[in-house]
């Protein structure tokens, strides 16, 4: 990720001092430099602490709902930093009428991917003592990280993207925001810590259809693999996954397509899914979650990133996304649209499932 912190601060300060927004949502330093946390700036001081860097893992879309969601005329607006995946989520909330477009100022940035702290520490545990990130370069085939440790010594690592980036970034569908108000400018000519780091291995900037195709292919081949399994092995595969779920609901809480005031899983009567974790209830929970986002999932991968048990939730989402694409002929099914394939009545609905059933 190129260096956007300076222009982020500048815009945040301007928007706040002009009274245009009440809050700016971006990142701030956490306890661990490798894990910046979502931050909410309400004045100039707080804005000066905002940042965004290659370790900013959490998606920010869902926070917009908390800040201005649900009401017809919110008293104030918010500004939010948005990478491609964040912007998809925000677009989702807007399409679902949970957030009004005019009450959010979207500060777009281009994103080349975010480093997976866990993967990094697994490769070199020394990074856990990081005091300062000195330099990061994310290229097409190589990622480089260099940090200053607590004892002032330096440590660096060079590796393949698949070994260092978040899984969701390896399947990224949009590197640039699909909706934004202001596109932040990267610091002229600088990549984070360029002066000390290696020459970046190629700038991944700009809308890159090739990248998207690659991501789509990656997603599709995983789906195709599971589709190819016999139904018994497929059942076993999913049973193995669902068994591990601890029903923490992190996947739901983080999902921009899960924005209901009262989630069906929290309704006591009727009890759609019981709180027990019997396998049948686990299946029920996961089917419900997947079907509730079918045709609306934006492929942001946040659910999978948030899951503490590492369930392959994107695989399930991607399967449904592929079905929607094929059955309804929807292009870019991950991008929220005016009218959604599963969201209207039409007497000539393709109903491919009905056909399948009747044709056996």
């Amino acid at each position, binding site marked *: 990720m190129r260096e956007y912190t300076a222009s982020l601060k500048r815009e945040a300060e301007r928007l706040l001092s002009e009274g245009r927004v009440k809050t700016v949502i971006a990142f701030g330093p956490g306890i661990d430099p490798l894990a910046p946390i979502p931050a909410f700036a309400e004045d100039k001081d707080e804005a000066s602490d905002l940042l965004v860097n290659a370790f900013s893992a959490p998606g920010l879309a869902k926070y917009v709902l908390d800040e201005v969601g649900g009401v*017809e005329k919110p008293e104030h607006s918010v500004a939010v930093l948005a990478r491609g995946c964040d912007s998809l989520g925000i677009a989702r909330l807007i399409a*679902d009428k949970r957030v009004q477009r005019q009450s959010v100022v979207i500060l777009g940035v281009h994103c080349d991917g975010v480093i997976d702290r866990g993967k990094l520490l697994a490769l070199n545990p020394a990074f856990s003592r990081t005091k300062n990130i000195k330099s990061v370069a994310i290229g097409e085939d190589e990622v480089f990280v260099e940090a200053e440790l607590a004892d002032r010594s330096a440590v660096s690592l060079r590796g393949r993207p698949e070994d260092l980036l978040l899984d969701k970034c390896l399947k990224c569908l949009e590197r640039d925001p699909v909706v934004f108000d202001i596109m932040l400018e990267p610091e002229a000519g600088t990549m984070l810590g360029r002066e000390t780091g290696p020459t970046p291995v190629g700038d991944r900037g700009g809308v890159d259809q090739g990248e998207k195709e690659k991501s789509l292919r990656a997603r599709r081949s995983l789906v195709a693999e599971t589709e190819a399994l016999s139904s018994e092995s497929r059942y076993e595969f999913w049973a193995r996954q669902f068994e591990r779920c601890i029903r923490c609901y992190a996947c739901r809480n983080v999902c921009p397509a899960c924005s*209901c*005031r*009262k989630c069906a899983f929290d309704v006591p009567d009727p009890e759609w899914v019981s709180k027990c974790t019997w396998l049948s209830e686990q299946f029920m929970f996961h089917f419900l979650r997947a079907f509730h986002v079918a045709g609306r999932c934006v492929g942001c991968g946040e659910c999978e990133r948030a899951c503490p048990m590492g369930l392959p939730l994107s695989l399930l989402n991607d399967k449904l996304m592929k079905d929607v694409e094929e059955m309804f002929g929807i292009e870019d099914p991950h991008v929220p649209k005016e009218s*959604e394939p599963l*969201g*209207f009545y039409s007497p000539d609905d393709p109903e491919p499932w009905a056909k399948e059933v009747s044709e056996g």
Partner: protein
Amino acid sequence: MKRIGVFVCWCGFNISGTIDVKAVASALADHPGVVVAKDYKYMCSEPGQAMIKEAIAEHRLSGVVVAACSPSMHETTFREAAQAAGLNPYMLEIANIREHASWVHPDDKIAATRKAIDLVKSLVEKVKRNEALEPIHVPMTKRALVIGGGIAGMQAALDLADGGTEVVLVERDSHIGGHMAQLSETFPTLDCASCILTPRTAEVGRHPLIKLHAYSEVAEVSGYVGNFTVKVRKKRTYVDWDKCIGCMDCMAKCPKKIPSQFERGLGIRKAIGVAFPQAIPYRPVIDRDACTYFKTGKCRICERVCSVGAIDFDQEERVIEEKVGAIIVATGYDLAPKAKFGEYGYGKIKDVVDGLEFERLNSSSGPTEGVIKRPSDGKIPREVVFIQCVGSRDVDKGNSYCSKICCMYTAKHAMLYKHKVPDGQAYVFYMDIRAGGKGYEEFVQRAVEQDGVLYLRGRVSKVYEDDGKVIVRGQDTLSGENIEIAADMVVLATAIEPQRDSRNLAQILKIGTDQYGFFNEAHPKLRPVESMTRGVFLAGCAQAPKDIPETVAQASGAASKVDVLFSKDDLVVEPLIASVDEAICSGCMWCEPICPYHAIEPKTIEERVGKKSVARRVASVNAGLCQGCGACSVACRDGAMNLKGYTNQQIMAEVEALCL
């Protein structure tokens, strides 16, 4: 405490032949909440119903399950019985153990009995969660819209208006009467069409309860049964009809002559004027495409001669709004277009005409004043060939249906021709004769026997012009002989087709059409004058080809359906409709486009959050429009949308009773 009664019906042997009804009753007697379980030979009989009523009183039942046949058979019977015994009718449910158990498992009595027990148990669990529901009353506008002013529309309008209902009649043409105004005489009595039609048109014209919008079209319809809002587009006539006194000086003085559509191109009319002398309303229209002034910017003679200054070249189209509670669609038919029948020379050979053209040639007020002359040279034809089923019963031309009236009017045409030209010869090519109707068969026989019309069974293969004659080649399938007739004139009984824009109107009205474009009735046998949309009724050829008597009967039927609707104080709708739990609803409006009946709209509610009041969007269901299909409730992710009588809680209870 829930106190449920279960009543198991034997349905004679229908159920008890397969299912052990005693076992069902005793299994249910032990089910939690069931305080009485009985069986009886025929629950729907008087004693059976009495048994239920008594039990309701005796055991103070809070709910009832009748295990019997399909709810579509006797749900109403039993619910009325429950109501008579003081129980809210919606506290009674039917467990269908006939169609769903005994009839489908005749060979496995044990399994069928087990299934019946499960079905009844699931309904008991459902009924425990039933709520008392009351029918919903929706106010209505007791005013009707009739679209189309042919004989169908006029009949319906007059019936309604005579009964005291206000009617808005919208006619696209400049006059009412429809196709009947073009007919000369009518089968089977051969009385003159205008003699029976003009008293009607005049009555419509002067009826105080009929508001006629001629030269107008329905542009938009919103709302629902009892409460439609209709936008009527009043097309530009370029004459102020309120000022106009109907002197027709303008028509007399207009220098521009054009072929008359009413005369099907066989006569002429002026660029301004009325289509025929008895036209109602008797008010002129300027044909913009023909008018010299609109073409060249010069003329305006009509404006000069009009003594009341009614001509208005700058007239604007107007859209007016009418509120009505019911709509009758009577837009009639069109004849199959000429272009379709090149092989019969139609459209190429002048002396090949269609049925309506023949009507005009035979009409005393027509272009030939009733003398049958052929169009090419005005000679009286000596040999006339009539061809039936042109474009009907013909898959290649797209119409596999029978146009129903052509057999009859062809016999009429041949007869009328023979009456006027007794020494001429009339031939009729036919596939078979369909003359079902009072006095119809006799009518056709008269044509053959008294008037000597020659009927030839077979299809015509070719029609071409040769030396002033129209040569008709065909085969007589009875004798197997090839026939060639050198005729002076050929009359084609072309297919009756829907109005070309019927699908468009269907969309405006949200009603269905068949594959051809005729409007669909709600049920072919039991609901022939209703459409699938409540409050929209059908009459005349717009629904299917038919003759005048049948058209009039259907129109009167539609009118009385409207009367039945309006006979109530307000609209009573079943309470089995969707309802929104506003506390849960996220206002995502996912349900809105899913509703096939456009019954869902967003609404804003004010809510107190802490000390402040905030506005929040939620879905709201229009009780008049909702048909209770349940699509929305399935689509709603958080379960805010629930279908009364089939709530998520009820369905889940049923499922759990069946599965756990």
